[in-house]
């Protein structure tokens, strides 16, 4: 029953993807012994708070106990039953805010390293290529899922387990959504995300990449062919800032994507400015820093208002990333098409806005220049414009859904970032949306006797 120490997956160059040792993961996998010791530290709480704090409600004490008893396959099954993307979530979840933050051992000592234990168990089955589930008895019903991010994969897997025939449409070349293109290699190598796409395929889901839903006619066609449609569109590119020199800005998402898929395309700048202070900004800054650049992050408010988690902020500081708060970029300065700096203005905090955060106001005459040779913009993501196109009810740019993830159109469901009007957009929330939607779709399909399409 020896579980050999797992190979650090990002250290292993993968055939398909270039590997840069500077992007080696920040948390190496647990060795078998470390995992055993950590698992035995878990109290195996009853009705445990960590389960409640996990948005997908993984039975954490049970999966940890199974690690403690050397039942790694059973442990992985417990995890993946509740969260088909347990491998990604083990790496990217803000555990301090969720499960680990709720662990009863916080008040006594250190919380259990739930994320790392989860990774230990899921890696075990993924490295051995073990499929934990089989497709359900065919129901004769068909569902189309648009978007292969965490929301799309989750709903597909759950529906396939229930016996529905699922076709997953993805506009990009690779499946996985932001897990493939957006989460930096330090946290998740591409292979892990692609393996989750393969696991969905192993359940009989047809994944058609390079297929984009572009308009209402497309949706109508899908509704003709399928019993239900799920939209897991995610969000869009980094929005424009509307400042002079905009054309010189590097899209933060593109920058991260290149670092994963095509690192040779990354600019070799030595002084990089990153605009924004959210998760994406910190991720882009981390990559730039690991590639050897001096990195300064500009944010118009202060560290108290940043949307990034505290531990992310501190991580960035420990990486040697500098911050300039109360600073608003107003112009990108360039010479002969080459960036030389960003013109900024100092800000002062004013009265709180509707969200409760103080509104930053520019201090007239305080303009100054931050010299640099590249500027990355990471100020958020555009809302899914397609939603309007499809004739869906929209609020604040997000698709409106009810408790069952149903949109304003019959037989059309949605989940993930594209519906995240409130709360933080995260992988685990997208996975849970997929589960809710699968339950609701299954219920609807079970109620309707006749297939509604021709």
């Amino acid at each position, binding site marked *: 029953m020896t579980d050999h120490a797992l190979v650090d997956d990002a250290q292993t160059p993968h055939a398909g993807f270039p590997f840069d040792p500077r992007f080696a993961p920040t948390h190496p996998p647990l060795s078998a012994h470390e995992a055993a010791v950590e698992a*035995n530290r878990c*109290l*195996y709480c009853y*009705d445990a708070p*960590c389960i*409640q*704090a996990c948005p997908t409600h993984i039975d954490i004490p049970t999966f940890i106990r199974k690690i403690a008893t050397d039942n790694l396959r059973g442990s992985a099954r417990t995890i993946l039953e509740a969260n088909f993307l347990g491998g990604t979530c083990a790496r990217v979840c803000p555990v301090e805010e969720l499960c680990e933050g709720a662990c*009863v051992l916080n*008040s*006594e000592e250190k919380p259990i390293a739930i994320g790392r234990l989860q990774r230990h168990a899921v890696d075990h089955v993924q490295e051995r290529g073990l499929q934990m589930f089989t497709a359900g008895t065919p129901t004769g019903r068909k569902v189309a899922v648009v978007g292969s991010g965490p929301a799309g994969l989750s709903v597909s897997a759950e529906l396939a387990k229930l016996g529905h025939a699922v076709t997953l449409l993805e506009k990009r070349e690779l499946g996985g959504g932001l897990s493939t293109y957006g989460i930096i290699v330090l946290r998740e190598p591409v292979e892990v995300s692609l393996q989750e796409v393969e696991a969905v395929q192993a359940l009989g889901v047809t994944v058609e990449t390079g297929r984009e839903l572009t308009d209402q006619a497309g949706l109508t066609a899908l509704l003709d062919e399928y019993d239900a449609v799920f939209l897991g569109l995610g969000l869009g590119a980094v929005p424009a800032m509307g400042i002079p020199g905009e054309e010189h800005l590097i899209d933060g998402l593109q920058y991260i994507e290149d670092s994963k898929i095509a690192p040779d395309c990354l600019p070799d700048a030595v002084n990089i400015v990153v605009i924004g202070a959210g998760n994406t900004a910190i991720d882009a800054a981390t990559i730039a820093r690991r590639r050897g650049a001096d990195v300064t992050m500009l944010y118009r408010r202060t560290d108290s208002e940043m949307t990034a988690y505290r531990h992310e902020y501190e991580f960035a500081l420990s990486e040697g990333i500098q911050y300039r708060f109360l600073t608003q970029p107003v112009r990108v300065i360039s010479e002969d098409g080459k960036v030389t700096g960003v013109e900024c203005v100092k800000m002062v905090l004013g009265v709180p806005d509707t969200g409760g955060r103080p509104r930053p106001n520019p201090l007239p005459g305080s303009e100054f220049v931050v010299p640099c040779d590249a500027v990355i913009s990471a100020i958020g993501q555009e809302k899914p414009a397609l939603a309007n196109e499809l004739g869906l009810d929209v609020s604040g740019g997000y698709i409106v859904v009810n408790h069952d993830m149903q949109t304003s159109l019959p037989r059309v469901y949605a989940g993930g970032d594209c519906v995240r009007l409130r709360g933080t957009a995260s992988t685990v929330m997208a996975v849970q949306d997929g589960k809710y939607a699968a339950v609701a779709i299954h219920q609807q399909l079970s109620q309707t006797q006749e297939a509604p399409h021709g």
Partner: protein
Amino acid sequence: MADLSVNFAGIRAPNPFWLASAPPTNSGAQIHRAFEHGWGGAVWKTIGAPVLNISNRYGGLTIGGQRLLAINNVELISDRPLDVNLREIAEIKRLWPDRAVIVSAMVDASPEAWREIVMMIEDTGADGIELNYGCPQGMSERGMGAAVGQVPEMCELNTHWVTSITKLPVIVKLTPNVTHITEPAHAAIAGGANALSLINTINSVMSVDLDTLQITPNIGGRGTHGGYAGPAVKPIALNMLTELLTDEGVLRSGVPVCGMGGIVTWKDAAEFLLLGAGAVQVCTAAMHYGYRIVEDMIDGLGNWMDDKGFATIADVSGRALPQMSSFGQLDLGYQAVARIDPDKCIQCNLCYVACNDTAHQCIDLVAGNGVRVDPGYDVRVNGRAVADTRPTPVVREPDCVGCALCANVCPVDGCITMVSVPSTQENISWDALTAQRPEIATSWDAMMAYRKEQGIEIH
């Protein structure tokens, strides 16, 4: 600093920590090194008949990642030639006159064989002889070890052969592989033993390897029963020690008892002393960590004795014994209930599930507003903030039988305490009650009537 020296059946040592007869006492060089580390004495690895030891002789018990909670061995007595051992014993005693050097021996059950070995041991200048009637494996099949220790007549006879020819103190080391430990003890005393020691190893099969399906230790594809020792056996050893030291016959004889079985720290040793041991022996812990552990044993015991105001080992020895009682003499009227300190509780709910599933269903989960709630949560609500408002376990004291299960499972020190509460019941022992009213022991109706009288309700 307290005086740790002992005089055990005339054997003197600067402290009560002796190495038990086993691998740690296999040679002069080893014991020399052990004494340098401070051990007060050593019982030489058993010498006697020619043997051949076998390869792969130890199995280990691991629980929850904790290694060597017990060891199981299929080792025999010393496989070094007798004359080599005897020469080294003499050498060690000459080099370390202040330490206890005791020679463990085991030979065929014949007066000649014993006479011969006793003479040789006396010639070494050793302080005492320990008779090994304990080994449960290998030697017993040859009519020695446990084969002697398990038959009181043999035990008495063999002991007599030795005590009648030597002036050295004779310690009889008992095997725990018997139903009543007092029987071989009485036999040893009748045979003239000057002291007793216990326990030797317990018969055991350590484990089965789930990969290879072999019994461990795997000796060329076969396994056999072996002797079990180490931390996991301590409660058994303590019980046997108290059985001896509360026994009329043993007490009347006045023989001291050397305790062993699972001693790893000074605290374990203190427990053996409090229950009446005059000195202690250690084997597995030394095998696990080396001789160096004795430094903390001496230091820790001395500090504890200073804290408690004990000046000598004799002050400690037996201090907890008067509390030993039989079940029939316990107070039936005593009532304790579990009380949870809400400030210490971390809300793991282990007490709740333990009491609910396997005790008396008297712990409730109570929400912040004082309302009793069932376990469970709303799946639509998540986040650590929600988890912060978990209900707290509260004991319904009138229903608590005071079994103390919850206090045993609670992971936080001092969070659940068993508090004694005023009892409405009569303070009487079972023995006294059934002497007064014998029908209570034989008739359920009488029992129910007594309960009614006392207001005892069992749910």
